[in-house]
């Protein structure tokens, strides 16, 4: 159960980051968001 909770939390944060990145006007902030997004994607995929 905890396994799926972990993935659900990571997926939720990834979705919010994705939305923020899409709405953001400044490309430098978009780049900063993407760096966090990479980590979350690897977490959702259970790679790292």
């Amino acid at each position, binding site marked *: 159960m905890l396994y799926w909770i972990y993935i659900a939390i990571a997926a939720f944060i990834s979705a919010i980051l994705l939305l923020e990145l899409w709405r953001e006007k400044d490309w430098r902030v*978009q780049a900063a968001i*993407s760096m966090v997004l*990479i980590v979350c994607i*690897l977490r959702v*995929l*259970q*790679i790292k």
Partner: protein
Amino acid sequence: MPLKKNHVSAAIILLASAVVSFLAGREFLLMREPDVFYPSPSLTREGRLSDYFPGLEGTANDSKVYFFEGKESGSTALLLGGTHGNEAASALAAVIVLENVEISAGRLIVLPRANESGYTCTDPMEGYPQFYSIDTRDGARRFRFGSRLTNPLHQWPDPLVCSHWPSGQQLSGFETRNLNRSYPGRPGGSLTDKTGYAIMQLIKTEKVDVAFDLHEAAPEIPIINAIVYHEKAEEIALNAIFELEMEGINCSPERSPENFHGLSHREWGDYTQVNPFLMETSNPIQGRLRGRTNAELIVKGVSPEYLMALESGALKIAYLPAGEPIERRVARHITAFRRVIEAYNSLGDRPVILTNLPEYSDVLEKGVGEYLARGARKTDETKKAGHS
């Protein structure tokens, strides 16, 4: 409808993120490919930890167990490497024993990757390399370098406080993923607890008489170049240390604290019939002063920062001016293992007789790779034959 400017930049950045995720993910996944070992011809059978506790079947820690049985009956010895994935010499010493040992009496059981999960990641914030290579006569052979702890992907979340079962001793939460704080383990616990439990079951089921847990530690840790022993194995340990000192190999005796729980040298001895020993060597890559952190530091063990600390005299450290190369650390482990077995044999009438293991000076002169060569050659032959 034309795309807004910020959406174009978002799409480009997302594409770049996908590429970076793919490349990084591929690197991380490489660590899940297990190291391949080539047991000596004396191998009689292979098993897995799940043979002793089926709850480990299908998990990352269902490690391979190798059995060597002599023609004459005798005692049973167990050798553990890789309890902590960032202690390279401990794992490598077990691999060298696995790939070279011959046995004429008794039994030897080798578990070269006690916490296999720890080899699928590295410790966060440490900048550790994922692999290191050892030069052999047949080319470089690569080994994984792992984490001290079970991979958090395999055991999550860490509690705020790690409460040891059954003593109730409390440690930092992350220690719940430390195999050498988990003994005697329990079948309904975490993956690390289950692994500790399986190893205890192995010791009981196979009626192991003498057992070794190989480790390394930072040069500034007080228990270095030492054999830690359970009080019931004191005579064996002191005899072995006497022999090591006579050979010029400094080694300090450390009696296992009776109230520090979860460690192999304490719980193996308290809960089973075995005589347990834990051995430590000095490994600069684990230390806080180490400086540049790369595969060369694992193998050569040369750290200018530790040399400065040594020369300053401000810190008591186990570091030699020429460094702490893996040859010396592995040689120390193998020699201490041999001397303890010899001391055990001298005190009993059911010996474990092991041969074809390198002497201390052999490893220092010829290098570690000399004793791994057959494995590398087999790998090349396998590739030529078209097998994966």
